[in-house]
Every structure is written in C-alpha cells, then in structure tokens.
C-alpha cells in the first residue's frame, strides 16, 4: 500500500481493561503515525463514546469486565451509525471457536497476544487496504 494512503488523522478508540495494554497499543499506533487516539476500559464505556463521537477505527480486547469485546463488536455491527467502523480484536483468546465467532460477528482483524509491532502494522495495512 502506498505510503500516506492511510489517514493518520483518523480517530481511533483503544478498548482494554488493562491500562498498560492500552498504553502499549497507543504507543505502537503513535509510532505508526496515528495521533488522534482515545481510550475506554470496556465495551460499556466504549459504546457511548462511539455513539457520541465520529470514530474511524476501533481496537479492542475481548476479555473485559462489563461488556466484552465480542459483544462490543456485535453492538457496533448492529448499530446503523457505527456498523461501518472497522474493528480490530487484540486478545489472548485463542480458541478456534472464538476466532470463527469473531469472524462471523464481522471483525476486520484478529491479533492474538502476545503480539509484535510488526503484526499490528501488517494487520492495519491489510484492514485499510481492503476498505480502500
């Protein structure tokens, strides 16, 4: 994908219950040039933020207290105003059944923890390349 085709000003929401993981993802995204990043600590915090703001991309964990990542994904896909937002799952959940479930729920990318900066970059490029 040509350099710069990815809009680095897009508004990104990072959802994870562990602040350290949010910080890691934020730093990696920042290193990739993203500057407009916000955080939420679970699905039920994230959903109103998404409904209230013009987010372009969601990176979420699966296993969180309150609303889980998979349920957030389903809620996003079920909301006509949010359904278009690409969602990347970054999770320790590694059961094939879960990956299939996420795919069926309409996830745009699935990264298993522990992951590398390279993996994140590859998946982001792939997601936005597809969305064109």
């Amino acid at each position, binding site marked *: 994908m040509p350099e710069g085709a990815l809009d680095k000003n897009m508004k990104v929401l990072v959802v994870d219950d562990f*602040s*350290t993981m949010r*910080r*890691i993802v934020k*730093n990696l995204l920042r*290193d990739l040039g993203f500057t407009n990043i916000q955080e939420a600590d679970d699905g039920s915090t994230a959903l109103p933020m998404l409904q209230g703001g013009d987010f372009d991309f969601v990176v979420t964990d*699966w*296993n969180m207290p309150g609303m*889980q990542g*998979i*349920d957030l994904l389903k809620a996003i896909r079920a909301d006509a105003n949010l359904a278009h937002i690409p969602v990347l799952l970054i999770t*320790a*959940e*590694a*059961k*094939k*059944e*879960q*990956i*299939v*479930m996420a*795919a069926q729920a309409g996830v745009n990318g*699935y*990264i*298993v*923890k522990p*992951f590398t900066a390279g*993996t994140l970059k590859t998946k982001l490029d792939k997601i936005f390349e597809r969305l064109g």
Partner: protein
Amino acid sequence: MSALSNCHVSLEQAKSLVEFLESGQQEAADELIAEIQNPINSELFAEIGKLTRQLHDSLMNFQLDSRLSDLATADIPDAKERLNYVITRTEEAANKTMDAVEAIFPVVDTIQGQIETVNPLWAKLMNNKLDVAEFKSLCIDIDALLTNTGNETEHMRSLMTDVLMAQDFQDLTGQVIRKVIDLVREVEDSLINMLTAFGITADKALEQTKPKVGENLVEGPIVNTQARDDVVESQDDVDDLLSSLGF
C-alpha cells in the same frame, strides 16, 4: 442358634452349676456362668476394640483434615494477597518501563530532526560544494546537534537504567508465585485425599479433566497450546483459519 454354636456347656459344667445353686453357692455359680460365657465376651471385646481403633483413626484423620480449614481460612486468603502483589508489581514495572520509553521517544525525535537539518549542508560539504555562509550555518547546526546529543545521551542512559531496574519485579514475583504453586499443590493433595476418603479415586476424578470455560467462552491466555487441538498456537494459525473462512 449359630451364635451359640461355639458356646459349649458341658454336662459336667451343668451338673456343677446345679450343685452350686442347690448348695447356695451363688458366687461360685455366677463365676461358672461367666466362665462358660467367656469365649463370647472375648470375641465381643475384640470386635469392640477394633471398632474403637477405627473410630480413633477416623477422628485422627479428621484432625489432619483440619489443615483443610487452615488452608481455607488462612493460606488461600494469603495466596490471594500474594497474587494481588504480583499484579501490582508487574503493573508498576510495565508503567515504569513505558514512562522511560515514552520519555526517550521525543529525545530521539529531536535528534533525528537535527540530523535531518544538518544533512543537506553536510552532503554539500562532503561534495566540496559548500560556500562560506552555508559553512557557518552548518557549524551552528552541528554545534546544536553535538550539544543536544551530549546532554540527551546522559538523560537516555539514566532512562535506560530505569528500564533495567524496572525488571526487578521478575525475581520477586517469581518467588511469590512459586509459593502459591506450592499451596495449590497442597490443596490438590488434600482434595484428592478427601475424594479418596469418600471412595472416589483420583483416576476417576482425572477422567473429567478439561477445565470449564467461563461465561461467553473466555478463557484468557492458553498456556498449553501444544497439548490442545481446539486452540491456535500462533498468529499464523489465526491468519490461516481466517483465510479459510474467506478473510
């Protein structure tokens, strides 16, 4: 009548008994009766003795199992404390490390920016195409770069020492977790003993070994991916699975 089968009253004993009673020797008659009954009594006493010992052993075992209540009331809450300590320490370490790294990023950005400023004139200098005015400008830029780099390397060295020192959690959390593993092993042994006491063998219990998955399928990190066939082992496996689904 079988209960009396090993209780033999001889004719002689019966005659003696009658004699004792007729002659008013009540004590002697009682003694004789006791003597005749003796075989039954000794068996009965032996049986009671055996039961008493079993009861005693069972009570002793129950006392041993009071370790279980210690485990529940003291050791397990202590283990929870220990594991919370692990969470706290690892979180602190992660944050300390990221504090340092986040402080290093802008320093690197500044140095990179200064190098980019110097580069065009430096290239000209190397090709002997630099005029005097440019040379002066280059000198000022290089001076700034050297001063800044000199100061910042010291700063970065100290930040990297912070990163290094933040790793000291590993030793401490390792020790704490090892203690918790010992406790888990002890609880496991106690539970197996208890199951055995109730007649459930460990083998039978082990037959249903698959740990239950929590609500909404979540299980967290899989630590034994190689031993399981329902999980992926790597990102490549995830990608393969997704592409097989048409992703």
